[in-house]
């Protein structure tokens, strides 16, 4: 099948679930026992869909609420931005709309992307679509839940340390984090600029890949966006029995610790078996700096965040707390506007950048980041095409189950490395553990999304319904 016809097929699949179907499904889901609370706002002006043109004409997509749209508020799930409608639109939204797709609604998230459960939304948590006592993951939990519950087939999310892949794994959908710079960040409210990247959720690899292809490409408004040609992303459906012949799948031992949830371990083992059956060579590899990734990440990300979030000062936009001095405006607007986790990370980030601690924390973290990147690149340079690991150490946990901040941070242990190294990564549903989805993670070298998606699609196809059983 040619690239063009693959894209047409994926687009046709998306168009089959139009805005009417999405709205109907939304009302059903919302009318359930407690509602998912996947969305913070919904665009009900359906009439403008009629004249939409393009390959995605009339296709509804959900947008994480930290991506600027000018039809609906962009709140980042923060009190401080309650009701804030962006005067401009993010490049990614503009691109999808230029293909005829329609913003269906803005999805719930951990405030400013800071969290792994969507519990840290100022407007209340999103619930897991399969079990309302559990979290959908985060921070893009609303987008993951919106796709998993069938309201929309595709959604935009954002990643800083796994915020697309982890909720995709928890909810049993496909989630892709592209190479750093592959997709424009213009209009994505920054959490940690050197790690942030817009990602996509889809019901299938092909549909998610199509979305990625449409939003990818250089943007003159983002100095960190890559000025490289966008390859065809949508993978072919394979008819031969050994489609992965010649492909080397790395199995990094640090991602399979003794302590790994046995159900997750078993599901991954099964996936490796299938990958072998499909012709791939599974090779044991080692990435020794992996254990340092979470500490490094939780220095770099808060440090950048402490600076990125300084603009939320109640002066030019957003909610201003009553005060009779400028210091009062800053302090009260920010303490009333930011939730506890955001304040915690700003404080942490402020601390590690103080001149006297900079070398001990921020500089060291950057050195560790360089080491992690070097290890990753070396691994791919030695012939490994993709790495395969669990996306998360456990399936979705219960709401309120994780209370210690650092334990919550450890939930990102398998995902933060890709953000630190700037490489593409994705999560694919590979099975269930006691009814809860388990995600398998693929990682590839920079700009090697097509190969990563090709392997993932082959596994997706071979697993078939098994992935959701």
């Amino acid at each position, binding site marked *: 099948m040619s690239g063009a016809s693959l894209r047409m097929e994926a687009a046709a699949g998306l168009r089959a679930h139009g805005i009417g179907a999405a709205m109907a499904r939304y009302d059903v889901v919302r009318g359930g026992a407690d509602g998912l609370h996947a969305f913070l706002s919904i665009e009900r002006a359906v009439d403008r869909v009629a004249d939409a043109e393009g390959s995605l004409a009339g296709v509804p997509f959900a947008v994480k609420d930290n991506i600027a749209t000018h039809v609906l508020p962009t709140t980042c799930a923060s009190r401080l931005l309650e009701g804030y409608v962006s005067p401009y639109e993010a490049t990614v939204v503009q691109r999808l709309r230029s293909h005829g797709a329609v913003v269906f609604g803005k999805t719930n998230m951990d405030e400013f992307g800071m969290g792994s459960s969507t519990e840290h939304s100022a407007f209340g948590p999103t619930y897991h679509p399969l079990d309302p006592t559990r979290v959908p993951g985060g921070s893009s939990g609303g987008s993951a839940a919106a796709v998993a519950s069938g309201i929309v087939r595709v959604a935009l999310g954002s990643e800083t340390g796994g915020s697309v892949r982890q909720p995709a794994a928890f909810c049993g959908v496909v989630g892709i984090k592209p190479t750093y710079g592959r997709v424009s960040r213009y209009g994505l409210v920054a959490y940690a600029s050197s790690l942030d990247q817009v990602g996509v959720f889809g019901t299938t690899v092909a549909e998610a890949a199509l979305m990625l292809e449409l939003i990818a490409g250089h943007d003159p408004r983002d100095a960190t966006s890559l000025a490289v040609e966008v390859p065809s992303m949508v993978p072919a459906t394979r008819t031969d029995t050994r489609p992965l012949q010649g492909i080397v799948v790395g199995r990094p031992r640090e991602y399979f610790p003794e302590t790994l949830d046995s159900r997750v371990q078993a599901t991954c083992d099964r996936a490796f078996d299938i990958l072998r059956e499909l012709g791939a060579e599974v090779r044991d590899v080692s990435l020794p700096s992996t254990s340092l990734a979470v500490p490094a990440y*939780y220095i770099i990300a808060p440090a950048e965040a402490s600076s990125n979030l300084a603009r939320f000062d109640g002066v030019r936009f957003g909610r201003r707390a009553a005060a009779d001095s400028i210091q009062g*405006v800053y302090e009260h607007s920010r303490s009333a506007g930011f939730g506890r986790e955001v304040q915690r990370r700003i404080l942490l980030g402020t601390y590690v950048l103080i001149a006297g601690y900079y070398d001990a924390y921020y500089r060291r973290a950057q050195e560790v980041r360089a080491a992690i990147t070097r290890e990753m690149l070396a691994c791919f340079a030695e012939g490994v095409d993709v790495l395969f690991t669990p996306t998360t150490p456990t399936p979705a946990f219960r709401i309120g189950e994780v209370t210690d901040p650092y334990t919550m941070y450890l939930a990102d242990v398998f995902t933060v490395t890709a953000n630190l190294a700037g490489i593409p990564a994705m999560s694919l549903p590979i099975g269930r553990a006691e009814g809860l989805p388990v995600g398998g993670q693929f990682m590839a070298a920079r700009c090697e999304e097509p190969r990563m998606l090709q392997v993932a699609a082959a596994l997706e196809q071979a697993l078939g319904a098994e992935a959701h059983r």
Partner: protein
Amino acid sequence: EAQLPAMAEELTGILRHMDVLRNAPREAGAVNSVSITPSVWRSDTIEPSDHAIAMERVAPMMREGFFLVPRLATHEGPDGAPEPSVPS
């Protein structure tokens, strides 16, 4: 502010986990991933901007085109006006 002592304690706890970095291998030429992108410059061409109007909708306090904040408490200047800040 009542939360501050509790948060300080949490931070100490979090930072203790970060101490593993102290013994991590040193890497020369540490970079962040921004460093891999070559510099792309913008041409010096004006694009019309009409955001002043749009800002009226989102600003907490705007009058006659200015954003307003409580009067800055500074020493009285020669004209009774406080001094401006200057980036140094």
